[in-house]
């Protein structure tokens, strides 16, 4: 017994480290448990209220209503312009088919970013809209320039957004001019569309939009432009470096595109 006590005393730092690390790892591995998510939701919901109070003074004198309305109009126009671009191209390609595509006028909900988690690997932010505003998991987030991210989790009044600059988000996109599809990922530095065969013509400045093949995003939302082209070691493929239109670090106002997503499917696709 004494020997056991001595061992405990001698290695207590390591014992504490092992116990706490094991608890952390168990929680980490059971991250998708409903109970864990509930705890996280309740806690972050409470904290966001405190956080909102801290933002109160920032917005007290800003008189943002009109500006917000203008931003909303701007975002709607941005989507409209892009849709029209798409229509023009379709008309050129398929003259006999008029209004080939279905209308996809999704209503948009204005929202304010109330906090941001910045890192090289995974970036998130929280919005002041939630279940009560009709927000659902998987809804795309845009601003007046283009796509910003996607709703990952919601509480009654707030939602957590996974940005494009997140290693866990893979998005189906295409080059608007050539209809060439690819998968957009975040490599820690840039947004990249990988493994584009070199024989396909891609120009610097080509516009990247969400693809019709995307199961988590509606098509034709502007994402960014091709900034650079890098050949793979094999020489057969190239990676496209994308300059996103939207910069969530600088912006504080975004819009949620109100499209219904099947939560289970979305989670399966994203996780």
């Amino acid at each position, binding site marked *: 017994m004494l020997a056991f006590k001595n061992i405990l005393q001698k290695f207590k730092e390591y014992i504490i480290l092992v116990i706490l690390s094991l608890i952390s790892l168990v929680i980490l591995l059971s991250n998708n448990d409903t109970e864990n998510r509930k705890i996280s939701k309740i806690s972050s919901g409470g904290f966001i209220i405190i956080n909102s109070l801290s933002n109160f003074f920032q917005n007290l004198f800003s008189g943002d209503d009109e500006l917000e309305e203008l931003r909303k109009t701007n975002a709607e126009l941005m989507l409209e312009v892009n849709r029209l671009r798409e229509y023009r191209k379709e008309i050129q390609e398929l003259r006999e088919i008029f209004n080939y595509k279905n209308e996809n006028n999704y209503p948009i909900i204005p929202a304010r970013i109330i906090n941001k988690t910045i890192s090289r690997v995974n970036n998130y932010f929280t919005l002041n809209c939630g279940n009560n505003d009709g927000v659902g998991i998987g809804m795309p987030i845009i601003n007046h320039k283009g796509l910003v991210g996607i709703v990952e989790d919601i509480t009654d009044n707030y939602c957590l957004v996974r940005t494009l600059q997140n290693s866990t988000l893979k998005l189906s996109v295409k080059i608007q001019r050539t209809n060439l599809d690819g998968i957009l990922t975040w490599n820690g530095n840039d947004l990249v569309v990988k493994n584009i065969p070199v024989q396909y013509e891609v120009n610097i400045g080509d516009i990247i939009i969400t693809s019709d093949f995307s199961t988590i995003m509606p098509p034709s939302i502007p994402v960014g432009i091709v900034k650079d082209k890098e050949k793979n070691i094999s020489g057969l493929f190239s990676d496209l470096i994308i300059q996103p239109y939207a910069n969530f*670090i600088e912006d504080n106002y975004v819009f949620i595109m109100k499209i219904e997503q099947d939560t289970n499917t979305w989670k399966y696709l994203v996780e």
Partner: protein
Amino acid sequence: MSFKHYLPLILFIPLILIQLNIIPLISFSYIAPDLIVILLIYFTLLYGQIYGTVLGFILGFLVDILTGGILGAGMFTKTLTGFITGYFYNENKIHFNTSTLLFVFIIFIISTLDSFIYALITSQLEVSIAFLFFENGLLSGFYTAVFSLPIILLRKNKFIYE
């Protein structure tokens, strides 16, 4: 439980508010300083390894649930951070450790490890470990170390007591 147990938790609230609201404004190329690591390292250097390990666990848990990140990742990383920082603890050199450039150096080393391990756990990036270490660990560690400079100035002028 004495005041020393509560103080970092009290300081945590304003720091996490700054971390989530102000730090993004001064982030550079998605590299941001981690104020919570500075808090953890500072108190570990004051009170020792066991204190640091437990504090790391608690602060990591709070960060995970408040920022919407991956639950458990911050807990694990910060627990390790507290434990490793404990090796720099010396009860005869507390003032020296926290009021000289050694403090900034410790912050740099530990914060680099913290960012690197966190990135290793949470990242799905298709990049090498060396890339994660340099891009995510070193740069973030350096930025965090810069932010710890005011602490040594305040400690030197005895604005902050143990």
